[in-house]
């Protein structure tokens, strides 16, 4: 940007231009400092394990209760509409959800209606993160075909979800997956879907999304089967509409939702711990057990302090911006 070089301005107009340019230059410098602070503040907490106090919200309490009410060994449909672009939020939600479902030995049929890459991202998360974690603890690894299957990507969400609601078997006719012998078989032959006849046979449909793809799912499936949603912070306000009207049974929003879920996985709800004390109390709610001592904390606990610092930085940015504006106005008036 060009700034007037002559410090001794001759006319009032030139003085104004010179002052404006000076303020603009200062604003630019402050912005660069803020960017530098953002990089530092966002990265340093990632190397520390800080326990920040947290009280889960009502929507996440409902989500956890619904999730824990799913019978063990049952089949859950998982619409996974996220990729690593939102891994901080969606990745944490996926990992927390999968840890709970895996501990309940639930079978999972995953698919995407929003992004062709999404099923592969979910499979990679299971294969490269969650299975090694289970193996290290001497637990059974989750196997494709026996424990989960990927139905792939459906490009026409509206038509496909309407078909799923009408007749699930017919909607997925012809879908194949590789069985444990390496043979291509119909997905309904797999242990995951062999007992599923209609959508009503599924105890829960879960959607993890970074877009508004929950709209179609809720419009077509809510009321026929319990639905819970795990969304990004950006999609929070829009999805809250469905939660407040009780069309979905639970909702986790953004990084706070991830940490809420992890907190309840560790502490349960109104559930006494080993010392007999209830770590997380929620009025008028039946006790729901957690998994104390297990690997419950992940991205939520890791990123929550960063969220604090970044929010603080944003508040400071707004304050500095407004102070700058008032100072510029004051100078202008003089």
């Amino acid at each position, binding site marked *: 940007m060009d700034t007037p070089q002559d410090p001794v301005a001759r006319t009032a107009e030139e003085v104004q231009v010179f002052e404006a340019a000076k303020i603009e230059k200062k604003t630019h410098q402050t912005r660069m400092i803020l960017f530098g602070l953002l990089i530092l503040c966002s990265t340093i907490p990632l190397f520390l394990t800080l326990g920040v106090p*947290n009280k889960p919200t009502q929507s996440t309490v409902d989500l956890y209760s619904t999730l824990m009410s799913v019978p063990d060994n049952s089949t859950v449909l998982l619409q996974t509409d996220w990729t690593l672009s939102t891994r901080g939020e969606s990745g944490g939600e996926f990992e927390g959800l999968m840890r709970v479902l895996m501990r309940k030995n639930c079978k999972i049929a995953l698919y995407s209606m929003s992004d*062709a890459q999404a099923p592969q991202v979910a499979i990679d998360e299971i294969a490269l993160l969650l299975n090694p974690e289970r193996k290290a603890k001497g637990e059974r690894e989750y196997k494709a075909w026996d424990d989960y299957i990927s139905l792939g990507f459906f490009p026409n969400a509206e*038509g496909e979800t309407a078909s799923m609601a009408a007749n699930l078997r017919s909607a997925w006719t012809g879908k194949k997956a590789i069985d444990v012998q390496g043979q291509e078989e119909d997905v309904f032959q797999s242990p995951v879907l062999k007992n599923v*006849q209609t959508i009503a046979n599924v105890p829960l449909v879960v959607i993890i999304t970074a877009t508004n793809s929950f709209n179609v799912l809720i419009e077509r499936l809510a009321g026929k089967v319990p639905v819970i949603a795990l969304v990004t912070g950006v999609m929070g*306000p829009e999805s809250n*509409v469905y939660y407040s009207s009780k069309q979905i049974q639970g909702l986790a929003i953004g990084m706070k939702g991830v940490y809420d879920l992890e907190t309840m996985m560790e502490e349960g709800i109104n559930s006494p711990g080993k010392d007999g004390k209830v770590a997380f109390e929620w009025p008028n709610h039946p006790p729901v057990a957690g998994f104390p001592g297990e690997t419950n904390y992940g991205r939520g606990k890791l990123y929550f302090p960063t969220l604090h610092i970044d929010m603080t930085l944003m508040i400071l940015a707004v304050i*500095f911006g407004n102070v700058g504006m008032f100072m510029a106005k004051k100078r202008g008036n003089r």
Partner: protein
Amino acid sequence: MTFSFPNGSSGLYLALAATLIVGFLAMFAMMSMPARWRRPVVATCTFLAGAIYVAYYLWPKPQAFGPRDIPQNFSESVGSYLADSVNVAGTISTALTTFLLGLGIYSLVRIHGRKLLRMQKDWGFSLVLLISMVAIVIFGYWSYWQTKFGPDAVKLQLSSNWTWVNYTNDFLFDGLLQQMESAMFSIIAFYILSAAYRAFRIRSVEATILLASALIMMLSLMGAVEFIWNSHLPATGFAANFQITEIARWIRDTLQTPGIRALDFGIGLGALAMGLRLWLSLERGGVSA
């Protein structure tokens, strides 16, 4: 009605070939058809496809009617027929939508191929795009074939047995594509911070209300602030309404959600009107033009 053939049977391949030929013939017939005949054909297909969904939505649904149950009366027969038809219409529309992916690839190759051949401005980016696309397609399908149908398919399920093809595919997908998506998305943080600093200004009463609401919502998301704020207030009684989480909840449930719901309602009405126009082929443009 569903046609089914065993996997790998000659009947399956015959049906696939026949479907392909019929599809191409139908496409050729549509393209060579005079424009004045094309419109009624498209309008009829659109109306019939839409009518299935409308009828399925409006027709009473038989209670506890399983996919293997036999209809007992006229109402159940129609309901069952419509449920089957919805699946057929859904499958056809999914297949048609899939063509859009092919159309997207064709469009990308055409635009960037032309740019590359004519050495137009920034042709280097087009070259990178095309090489990346071809590489990920080749290694993607190669790796898929190896892990699903190859002689060592079962062995390759374990990453410790992967071949260089699987590693290359993993590097391209997880190592490059996904990481670059993350990097692109994380840049938004800088834009948000910059916008907060430069644009979020108290210039009017409305802006001040917006700023105050945003501040409360941000503070309510910070567990540490929530802990300190709420610890100074009782958990019950009138004063409990001034807990940061309660104020945020009030803003969300009383101001934000009804506002979004009103917007959604308006969008829904607009979509209904637009849907009716499309269904009845009243909308000008496309084939009607």
